[in-house]
């Protein structure tokens, strides 16, 4: 009985991390159509922000609060200097952000060194029967739900969200109504970057902080968003649930490496059957 509860908790946790990490990409890629291969480096920058803040003596929570702001600013900078010249040229965007990803990993390695730095995990443990579980994992789940709700609320119930969705559909019309589309693109990109920064910061105490941190996640988050399909939030959540389930079940049965292989293979077969992604046949919306 306890074992079942713990396993279920583990699966839920795997799903929550996948959603938390993929959410920023879902906004940038799913909504804006920008394939940002440097997305995983935004996660890494978020994690480094926590590292820097805690090294100054502040608590992890301060770091997690600051990280979205820092990475959001980095997002603005990158959008202004690189991405904005490449809207509509998807392959070129992809190549440029790939270069950005290599350069960011290299630059952070030069600045902080190639070693893995640990951050002490805050909060204690609670027990289910004979098993002990970190409370921080519950916090991660809460953050995943929270950022999902925030994104959903922002795009559905605010003026910015309305304008952003309109801009993605018809930028010319929006410009005709007196809104500058370039600003909206910048804001949306920055929001996606900030979400990634938050995700990386929340995961930092669990994964350790290393310049190549993003490598472990980039394959996963792209698969999740691609499988999710055009309805970005619900699609990403559904894909995260399905793929997280496959990954954690296979990981329990063998090793985490095979869990990833199974997840990728499952995703490729799924795309053969549903080329538009899971939400391809749903009514469109955010």
């Amino acid at each position, binding site marked *: 009985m306890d074992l079942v509860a713990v396993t279920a908790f583990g699966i839920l946790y795997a799903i929550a991390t996948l959603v938390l990490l993929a959410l920023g990409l879902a906004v940038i890629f799913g909504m804006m159509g920008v394939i940002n291969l440097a997305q995983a480096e935004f996660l890494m920058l978020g994690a480094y922000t926590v590292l820097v803040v805690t090294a100054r003596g502040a608590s992890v929570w301060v770091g997690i609060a600051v990280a979205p702001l820092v990475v959001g600013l980095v997002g603005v900078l990158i959008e202004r200097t*690189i991405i904005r010249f490449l809207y509509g040229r998807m392959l070129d965007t*992809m190549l440029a952000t790939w*270069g950005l990803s290599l350069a960011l990993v*290299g630059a952070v390695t030069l600045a902080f060194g190639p070693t893995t730095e640990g951050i002490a995990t805050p909060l204690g443990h609670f027990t289910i029967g004979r098993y002990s579980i970190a409370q921080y994992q519950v916090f991660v789940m809460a953050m995943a739900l929270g950022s999902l709700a925030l994104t959903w609320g922002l795009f559905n119930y605010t003026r910015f969200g309305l304008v952003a969705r309109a801009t993605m559909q018809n930028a010319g019309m929006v410009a005709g109504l007196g809104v500058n589309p370039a600003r909206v693109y910048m804001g949306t990109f920055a929001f996606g970057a900030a979400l990634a920064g938050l995700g990386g910061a929340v995961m930092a105490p669990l994964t350790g902080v290393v310049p190549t941190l993003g490598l472990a996640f980039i394959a996963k988050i*792209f698969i999740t968003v*691609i499988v999710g399909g055009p309805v970005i939030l619900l699609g990403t959540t559904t894909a995260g649930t399905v793929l997280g389930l496959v990954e954690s079940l296979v990981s329990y049965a063998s090793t985490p490496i095979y869990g990833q292989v199974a997840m990728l293979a499952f995703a490729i077969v799924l795309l*053969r059957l549903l080329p538009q992604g899971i939400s391809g046949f749903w009514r469109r919306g955010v």
Partner: protein
Amino acid sequence: MTAARLAWAVAVLALAALPLVLSLFQVVRLTVFMIFCLLALSLDLIWGFGGILSFGQAAFFGVGGYAYGVAGINTGVTALALVAGAVAAAVLAALLGYFTFYGRVGAMYFAVITLTVTLILHQVIGSTADPRYAIGAARLGGYNGMTNIPSLALELPGRPPLLLDPVPLFYAVAALLVAILAAGAALVRSRFGRVLAAIREDEQRTELLGYDVRWRKLVVFVLSGAVAGLAGGLFAGWGNFINPQVFSLSQSALVVIWVMVGGRGTLYGAIAGAFAVQFLTSYLGAASVTYTSVALGLILIVIVLLFPRGLLPGVLAVARLLLPRPSPALPEES
């Protein structure tokens, strides 16, 4: 036509004469550059002519190398191992291509999927450090790599195998490069190649004209995978060693950079790009891997922003604008 043949003849003769004037070290280095040229060629074949950007060429290269190692260590027949390398990579390309092209996955998704396959192969092969991960006598060796891979040898029936030391290996690789370049050029000029160019220009229109686009994309992807696998096999035989680094992000980026520097869609450009970048990095190479990664990244960004058609074609176009053109003789007015 005759001028093109003359250029070919001069190039082949120059290549043949190189080992006579270069030091042994330079011959060995040039050999590996030519192997990289093959890899660049494989990407240009699918990207420049089929219009399909694959980030997975490094994966096929690596799979080819590992297959060469496994087959070479177990059978000792290196010609067979080389074939195994090309076939293994072709099979992976066929599997991947079937699911993506027949699933009508978009070009962007295709690029991302090939990238994720490469990254996951990196982790999978890296996790095989334990001695129980062995195929026959060949230990995969995790991040330490696979060692004791046999060098390429010429095995004729009824004779002891003749090990190819640096200079014969140089000629063997050069011959393969020229042969595959010629085959690629012929393929591009053939009927199949023309349909391929049509797919690159407008996939939907080509399909509406009655051509099976999926099948043709699959064929060119498998061919390109086989060439990359062959290059990987040659690489493993050249260095007697292969490790998961071949699946890394920077290695995948390098292949794309070679083709972007040389300009895509010419085959020769890919080769020129691979040579140029590799010479440059081996001269700058004293610096650490970290600097290389920063430099590679910045090069990619700059090329994409400033020379979207490729660096060499861009520079040539600028040069053509700046140089005073010989004014054509005007017909005299009567």
